[in-house]
């Protein structure tokens, strides 16, 4: 693949559809050998969580995800790349984030999707607030050292 793909980035309140997004990267093409998707969902944390509220920085969220996606498209020979991140109130079992990477070869698709998620976690301007079940109130999720370490795997 000589040309660099143009990633599709969306930041939205509404849900997304994995099948639609995967099809968009393969329909009518005969050069795609591998599609890797990552779907991040809201967990209830063993019943502790009633909902997540995702705050974001409008404008910068799209721009920063776009920068990360462009870097992935430069680093791996992708035929397509889609990133969708939701904001607002999200209940357990609902979707939060989707990355779909398509390539002729499986390693490129896997690595690009993995890289995207590690960078999104630590660089995309979103903040999760947990609304606890019952009367116990709400609290901001703290960033994990592990997420910083995951991102460092890709430095070069």
């Amino acid at each position, binding site marked *: 693949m000589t040309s660099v793909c143009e990633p599709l980035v969306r930041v939205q309140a509404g849900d997304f559809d994995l099948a639609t997004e995967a099809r968009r990267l393969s329909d009518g093409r005969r050069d795609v050998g591998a599609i890797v998707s990552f779907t991040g969902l809201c967990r209830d944390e063993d019943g502790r969580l009633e909902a997540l509220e995702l705050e974001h920085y409008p404008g910068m969220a799209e721009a920063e995800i776009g920068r990360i996606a462009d870097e992935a498209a430069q680093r791996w020979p992708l035929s397509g790349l889609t990133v969708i991140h939701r904001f607002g109130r999200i209940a357990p079992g609902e979707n939060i984030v989707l990355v779909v990477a398509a390539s002729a070869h499986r390693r490129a698709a896997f690595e690009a999707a993995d890289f995207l998620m590690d960078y999104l*976690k*630590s660089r995309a301007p*979103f*903040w999760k607030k947990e609304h606890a079940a019952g009367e116990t109130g709400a609290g901001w999720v703290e960033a994990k050292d592990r997420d910083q370490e995951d991102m460092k795997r890709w430095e070069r």
Partner: protein
Amino acid sequence: MKLIYFAWVRERIGLPEETVDLPADVKTVADLLNWLKERGENYETALERPEVIRVAINQEHADHAAPLPANGEIALFPPMTGG
């Protein structure tokens, strides 16, 4: 200069955004954080651990040593937890 706050920085300061006139000696992000802390207890509480405060200048990540732009928007927020 337009300042924008997110997540617990926003909650602790009590404002989503504001426009401020900065003194001439406030030249870097670090200077800005120090200057803001003098503006009241809410700022003091929000910025008490400046090392955890992340900054974006005109919607791009910047570090605390970065010079402030002549104009534009500076965002202050906690470490991100998206994804």
